[in-house]
């Protein structure tokens, strides 16, 4: 299992908004593929999959605000 964590995006940025999930729970993903788009300030940022596998859980919906360091999703490599 690999957690998808919202990484540090820059000095003073504590939160971001989920703007688009490229995959749904249960779908297969490949490492480095775009997994989720997040928005902060005047920027959108595409977070890539940290591992290949199945998206087993997604914890936030599009439009939700997320803190840096929070787990967004889990990828099951099994």
């Amino acid at each position: 299992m690999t957690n998808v964590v919202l990484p540090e995006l820059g000095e003073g940025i504590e939160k971001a908004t989920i703007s688009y999930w490229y995959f749904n729970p249960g779908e297969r993903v490949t490492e480095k593929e775009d997994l989720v788009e997040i928005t902060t300030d005047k920027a959108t940022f595409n977070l890539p999959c940290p591992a290949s596998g199945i998206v087993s859980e997604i914890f936030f919906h599009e439009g939700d605000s997320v803190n840096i360091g929070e787990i967004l999703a889990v990828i099951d490599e099994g």
Partner: protein
Amino acid sequence: MMITKPVSVFEALDLGLIDFKKALEAQKEAYSRVKNGEQFCALIFCRHHPVITLGRSSSRKNILATEADLISGGIEVCETERGGDVTYHGPGSMNVYPIINLKFFKKDIHWFLRTLEEIVINLLSDLRIKGLRLTGLTGVWTGIAGEEKKIASIGITIRHWITLHGLSIIIKEADLKKFQYIRPCGMDIKMTSLETLLGRNIEMEEIKEILIRKFEAEFTRHVNMVNS
């Protein structure tokens, strides 16, 4: 086989007056070259045929033009993946789309946005205009406190820490009229142009030359024009 690393210069393209969608294709091609390591970083300069673009945070309510206004003004509407709300680009605005791999500089969205603002502020300073930042708002403004007008808008996308989209500076006064068709950035803000502030005509080429020098200074890399 020996792999040669791309030279660490910014390769700049001037696409002239071009459709927003065609320029976006050029950005994506440059992005692929930068991502694959064939090119270090790129700068794309261009102007657009009239177009209203929507960012990821946009609401269609911020387009005030009617369908008839859009048709008579020959204004296209395009949805984009960049951050930010609605904006207008006309032939009298200079757009710069930096395709920059932030892994070579600083993996910091805030730093990159503030650096783009700094480039515009330094450009204005060369023309003896004081550019301002407004707390909590991205972009560059001018004017006295409480009555500031916006001259440059910024909206970016980052993929694999490589940037797309960028900044738009209003140069020609003629472009200002079209801003009545939108609520820029979703707010009731006033826009201005460089020519309005200078009280004279200014050539796009002159702005481009200054911008190149400012990018070189901020990113400490040489900008090599691929075409001109």
